[in-house]
């Protein structure tokens, strides 16, 4: 009896500990969110800068009190979309290759390589972009500089590979064998089995990977900063135009800014936050809609 009681107590204590961890995690997650929103909404609430001008403006000149981010939003959306369109399919297919088609040794090697890719700091991706991608883009570009939307998309697409590949690969590999057996026994080919049974069964995990990958694409700063050009105005109209994604705007100037300028950089963060929240919602909806039941 005593022992049972002690065990129960122990159980409660550890559950309490889990709760504390969850609490810390949740609080820190919420605190960041609150911090960003608090600082970012201040200028509009105190009316030190009109929200509409902020959202619709197409020029960013802090010195002349011009803080328009519309052209950056456009740039961010294009860059992210482009990176997803190129990066996500490649990543998922690579994950499929690793877990379904490669032998266990080859799979291990590729997995290792992909993890390595995740470990390379973004600064180096930037340096790589500046050293290889930008000059190459310059060669085919009608513009005089290689810093462009295209370079940004390419660098980002590369950078989301590791996240999406590793998480997708993990969730594909835990799909029960019985599903595969069932599918093969119905005369499905390997490819059909993969695309009709395995991938749908792993959907939730893959989506997590995609969302985290998109998160990385949207949130990436250091690499992008070197290859995007960061102009102070101009809505991109071609792949070869320079862009200034929201993130680099924040990172470029945060060290220097103060007052309204700084607050509006936080506001830029809020826009980013809302941006990814929307994507998140859409992706979640898509997943749910597909699962049916």
């Amino acid at each position, binding site marked *: 009896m005593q022992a049972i009681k002690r065990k129960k107590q122990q159980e409660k204590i550890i559950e309490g500990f889990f709760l504390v961890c969850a609490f810390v*995690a949740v609080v820190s997650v919420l605190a960041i969110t609150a911090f960003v929103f608090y600082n970012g909404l201040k200028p509009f609430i105190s009316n030190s800068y009109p929200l509409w001008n902020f959202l619709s403006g197409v020029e960013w000149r802090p010195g002349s009190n011009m803080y328009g981010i519309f052209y950056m939003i456009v740039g961010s959306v294009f860059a992210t979309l482009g990176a997803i369109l190129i990066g996500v399919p*490649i990543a998922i297919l690579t994950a499929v290759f690793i877990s379904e088609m490669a032998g266990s040794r080859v799979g291990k090697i590729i997995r290792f390589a992909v993890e390595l890719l995740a470990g390379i*700091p973004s600064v180096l991706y930037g340096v790589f972009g500046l050293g290889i991608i930008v000059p190459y883009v310059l060669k085919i570009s009608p513009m005089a500089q290689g810093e462009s939307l295209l370079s940004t998309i390419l660098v980002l697409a590369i950078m989301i590979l590791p996240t999406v590949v590793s998480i997708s690969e993990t969730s594909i590999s835990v799909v029960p064998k019985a599903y595969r057996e069932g599918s093969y026994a119905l005369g499905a080919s390997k490819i059909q089995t993969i695309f009709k049974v395995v991938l749908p069964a792993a959907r939730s995990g893959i989506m997590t990977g995609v969302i985290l990958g998109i998160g*990385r694409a*949207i949130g990436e700063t250091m690499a992008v900063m070197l290859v995007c050009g960061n102009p102070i105005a101009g809505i991109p109209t071609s792949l070869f135009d320079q862009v200034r994604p929201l*993130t680099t705007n924040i990172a470029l100037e*945060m060290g220097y800014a103060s007052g309204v300028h700084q607050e509006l950089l936080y506001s830029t963060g809020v826009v980013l936050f809302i941006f990814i929240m929307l994507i998140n919602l859409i992706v979640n909806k898509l997943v749910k809609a597909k699962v049916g039941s």
Partner: protein
Amino acid sequence: MSRSIKDLFVKGIIYLATGITLSVLLFIIGFIFVQGIGLVNWDFLTRDFNEKVGYAFTEAKDVPLSIDEEKLNDINSLDNRYETALEGPIYIENIGAAISKVAYKNHSTEREQIVVTYLEKDSSLQSAIDSTGVEIKIGPDYMLQSINGKDFTDLSLDEVAETIAAQSGELKIKIVQPGGGIKSNIITTLYMVLLSLLVALPVGIFGAIYLTEYAKPGKLVNIIRFAAESLAGIPSIIFGLFGMAFFVVALNFQISLISGSLTVAVILLPVIIRSTEEALKTVPMAFREGSLALGATKLQTIFKVVLPCAVPGIATAVLLSIGRVVGESAALLLTAGTVAQIPGTLFSPGSTLTVQAYYVAKEEGNIELACAVGIVIIVIVIVLNILSRITSDKLDVFNKK
């Protein structure tokens, strides 16, 4: 048959995608190696980034040369990347050391210098102390700049040797420990990985366990999950600002190792929570049922069945986290600083390898150096990956057979 053609086509696309992934990887790694490998050597790994000036106090005592001239004159010991021999060496008995004049060069300077190229076992330099009485370890490659107030600048090697030989009794020598290496950055990086994982892993994993296994699924949990996912897209510089406002200023931790690692831990939390949750969700219900039906408590079920099954997924999260810590720059810039020194305490600043690479790329435009640092980072990531794989395989009792 059209199906097999279709399959073949899709297969081709899969191979192509994998090929692209791999060639991108090879290309990037190749780029980094080609650019950086020229700078990587033992000295690069073991020297500090900045030169360190100091005054060494010791006493002159005659120590005769005990190795033969030929060996002495063999100056292969010089690292030609940093020091190229110009004159010398000359052996000086009263400090028991041979000196040479070299062209000295590191990431920030290029100049002529007198360096120690050989030290006798009981050379007086071996027993030097600083002005507070702490022993200074003078080694080969250390630069000598003045002795008892007599500056060596603009003197020839012979003149320097004469000047030194003329001294007796107390010696006060201005020495410079050579720079150009990244030892302190390597150590800071390891500290940073260790500290931030130490905080983020338990909090993240146990937090995720709470959210999936204990918390009633509902609005609140969904909101948290949603916030966590959305945070993944917030640029780390914003976390850096938060860390700056909270850890550095509000908690008064200063710009330091601890502020940096706590900030990174906060960055890692969303990733760890989401991946762990996902891993836990894939554990079949039948295992939980089986365990509970055997009278196991919820906790026992979690630790003995659920977690071990989830090990591969959690390991992925850990690997991604390590990558993230090692690769973080923006947030650390604001919370841990850019000081290339080994942090003495948790509350000292320090710069990780990535911050250093970022700095040299940004300020000095020194791509080779940035890539050299990159090579070291890649090696560290490989080692950490292997270590965590081994650990996870050890823990992964279930997938063994």
